[in-house]
């Protein structure tokens, strides 16, 4: 019993250290990659290839003056970054990184809940408190706008995200993440059969993590730095940490739900496919790269269009996917899963074809008035 608790603690500390190191180097990788996308050199002065840049950044943010504006609500101003980082770090513990017992005889996850997926959705939905309490407690206008934007945005896209996974859960019949991965090892990865859900889930994950093209809460051109405006020093760094950790968690969740999680491709044989960590890490790295790629490619959406996209496109499409999967389960039980695969491919093609006709983007005056733009 006591050793169990100690082991769990040890694994939790390992996960936290791993996440924070990844965060530190993600900032460097992101800046280097963005620089390459924009044909510049990027940070390459501190250490070989700029590899010591994160260390320099850490020292700088710790020793900067920690400003608290007079109009700020002191307690909540302090609390907000800690809420953000706590929620971000605790969500990752539920992600399984390998088959049971593959970490020197231990299980390569911090905790394995039957409600694993729900737990991750619940903790990430709590993470929004950090952002919009930061916005409110700063006591000035721009952070408040950023906070309001983020809370409305996250609530809207949470719906699409939740609906996207419903169809997937109907197929797998479990919310346990290890169970979902094992189902995929048996039947084939879910991106094949839940292509529509995959698209909607990825888009809403971008919105949930406040990444471009959905980074309205900190839109520099309009809001200075949004909810971060009044933050400096280590508290600012904590928010950055939370954002990147959320991104890593989102990558891990996408990999686990749709791309076979910790399992490698089956044609390499059971032994190689079961090697812990490397497959999950490779998939996370791929998704982190896509996050950066998208940031370098797409411009930011306007706020009213973001809401319209969430409610009038993402939500109905995710709902339709749920209904289609339910119909498949009800009317074609025991038939090949490939019917769903063909359906997803057709719908995704239709979405790409009709993305040119921007009817859903038409500006609705009411929504804009509500959005406060």
């Amino acid at each position: 019993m006591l050793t169990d608790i100690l082991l769990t603690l040890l694994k939790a500390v390992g996960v936290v250290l791993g996440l924070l190191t990844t965060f530190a180097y993600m900032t460097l990788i992101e800046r280097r990659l963005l620089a390459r996308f924009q044909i510049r050199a990027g940070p390459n002065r501190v250490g070989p290839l700029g590899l010591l840049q994160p260390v320099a950044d850490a020292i700088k943010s710790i020793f900067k003056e920690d400003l608290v504006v007079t109009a700020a609500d002191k307690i909540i101003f302090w609390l907000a970054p800690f809420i953000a980082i706590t929620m971000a770090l605790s969500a990752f513990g539920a992600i399984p990184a390998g088959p049971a017992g593959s970490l020197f005889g231990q299980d390569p996850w911090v905790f394995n809940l039957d409600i694993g997926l729900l737990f991750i959705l619940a903790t990430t939905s709590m993470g929004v408190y950090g952002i919009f309490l930061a916005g409110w407690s700063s006591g000035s206008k721009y952070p408040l706008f950023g906070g309001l934007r983020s809370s409305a945005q996250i609530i809207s896209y949470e719906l699409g995200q939740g609906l996207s996974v419903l169809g997937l859960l109907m197929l797998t019949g479990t919310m346990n993440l290890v169970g979902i991965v094992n189902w995929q090892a048996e039947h084939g990865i879910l991106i094949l059969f839940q292509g529509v859900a995959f698209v909607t889930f990825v888009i809403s994950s971008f919105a949930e993590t406040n990444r471009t093209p959905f980074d309205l809460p900190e839109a520099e051109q309009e809001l200075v730095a949004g909810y971060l405006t009044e933050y400096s020093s280590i508290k600012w760094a904590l928010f950055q940490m939370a954002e990147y950790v959320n991104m890593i968690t989102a990558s891990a969740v996408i990999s686990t739900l749709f791309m076979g999680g910790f399992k490698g491709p089956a044609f390499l044989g059971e032994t190689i496919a079961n090697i812990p960590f490397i497959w999950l890490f490779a998939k996370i790295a791929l998704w982190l790269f896509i996050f950066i790629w998208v940031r370098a490619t797409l411009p930011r959406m306007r706020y009213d269009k973001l809401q319209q996209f969430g409610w009038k496109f993402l939500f109905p499409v995710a709902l339709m996917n749920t209904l289609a999967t339910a119909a498949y389960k009800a009317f074609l039980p025991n038939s090949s899963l490939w019917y769903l695969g063909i359906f997803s491919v057709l719908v995704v093609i239709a979405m790409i074809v009709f993305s040119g006709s921007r009817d859903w983007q038409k500006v609705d005056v009411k929504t804009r008035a509500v959005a406060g733009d």
Partner: protein
Amino acid sequence: MVVFVILAVLAIAGAIGTISFKSGIYSALSLVGTLLTLAMMYVTLHAQFLASVQVMVYAGAIMVLFLFVIMLLNESQMSGADPLPWVQPVAIAGGIVLAAALAFTAFQFKAPKNLETATAALQGGTPGAIGETLFTKFLLPFEAVSILLLIAAIGAVSLVHRQPAHNEALETTSEHATDNAYSDETSSNPAKVVA
């Protein structure tokens, strides 16, 4: 037992905070604290599913909306005067009746099944066990509640739905340019806007 006492104290402290803080934000945050401690109590009672749904729905969605509205309304505009003075005695009476009913239930409560069978049937409060009960034995109440929520949603939409006043500042040319969906929204052609 120790865990329960700690959680109970936290939950009650949050509840007292909810009604005693002057600032709306602090009140709402205290309520979030109470909801979270309740969720933890569910976990100690092996009701995992209920706990995570509690966090997701109440703390993650409903309270975020509450706080959103409080922030939009800007507290400083609130006056000190009580706009509905007759509510307080009614609320006190209602609170006493509710507390009495809860106390009565708590002391009169007899478990419908003995503890071992109930625990076995719960299966650790996993979604499977809850879903099965919800969609077989309690199907009618479940559907009734969902229809109720639908009615509430439609009601809310119809209440706020009205034709917007004509406001040129908020409109852009793309709303009128039906022939060309790609028309540049930033184009500032006043003739087109009026049309």
